């Protein structure tokens, strides 16, 4: 049940991001939409790793090592998400750097001004 809700939220975020990319003409907004898609994907990955009534995969007073395999959520999607967040940040940084350069070239952030590669 919980994971279905989280999965729906993540997929909705991806859809909103997709809409933003297709709808907006401002490069900064498109970058924000890309980040939304990335965040949605992270949420979807975490949701897939959820085990019913599971808890975080950290062994402490609340979760002994013996019962961890029964009660912990899947740690692999969590580990992958940490990786994905960092890569998402890297991609955003590169996109922003290019946005700055594009702005310097044309003095505008609208992608309508960049027609060189239009077929």
């Amino acid at each position, binding site marked *: 049940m919980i994971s*279905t809700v989280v999965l729906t939220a993540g997929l909705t975020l991806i859809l909103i991001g997709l809409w933003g990319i297709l709808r907006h003409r401002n490069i900064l907004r498109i970058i924000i939409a890309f980040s939304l898609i990335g965040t949605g994907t992270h949420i979807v990955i975490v949701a897939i790793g959820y085990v019913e009534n599971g808890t975080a995969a*950290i062994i402490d007073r609340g979760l002994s090592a013996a019962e961890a*395999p029964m009660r912990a959520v899947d*740690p692999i999607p969590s580990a992958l998400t*940490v*990786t994905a967040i960092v890569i998402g940040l*890297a991609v955003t940084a590169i996109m922003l750097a290019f946005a700055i350069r594009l702005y310097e070239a044309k003095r505008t952030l609208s992608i309508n001004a960049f027609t060189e590669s239009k077929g």
Partner: protein
Amino acid sequence: MIRRTGMVLAIALFGFMFAGLVIHHVERQSLPPLGKRYVELVAHELGAANIVTGILLTYRGFDTLGEVAVLFMVAAGVGLVLNKRGRRNQGKRGVTCSPPRQASEIVRTGAQILVPLLGIFATYIILHGHLSAGGGFQGGAVLASSLVLMLFADPQQRLDQQFLSRTEAAAGVLFVLVGVAGLIFAGGFLDSRVLPLGQFGAFFSAGTIPLLSLLLGIKVGCELSVIIDRFRS
């Protein structure tokens, strides 16, 4: 009009696909075999309480190394894209840069109070990566965010880029050296059982995982700081 229809169609199709995923999604009742194996192995073999950190720094340590390399390349790439020499035509177009406004009293005082606290918090997150929620990436991000706050408070401040690059390079080299030590003295590259595992749940435990976590935190913090600083100039 055609564009709009195409857009609506594309989103509707994606929505249809996602709806199928949600409808047929069944919540897991138990861990998949690989996840179960990792949960058992990290606790018993590595002695790390935080299983995610154990996976990230040992079983998937090579991935983590590659990822830090990606961050490094992004720092270099942002520097390349935004470098000063390639932007000679900037002055010609009549852009005048007014001197940056002084930060407000609230921001400056807030930064004075928060930056040391954020530093302590980042260290805590990094060093307790093997015991509780946290680790090198998270702590490094907190470290870099304290730097952003510092730069907001005093935009004129110059960062010592060379120091940051050197620290980062040193942390990277040490990370690889610890990995190679695992190759020689234990089971394989980045194997954390070079140092004694210690008592489960104690601060000094889980072999080299706290050490790797610390190096990773320093490296990520420096890399993110360099990226942020490149955007400023």
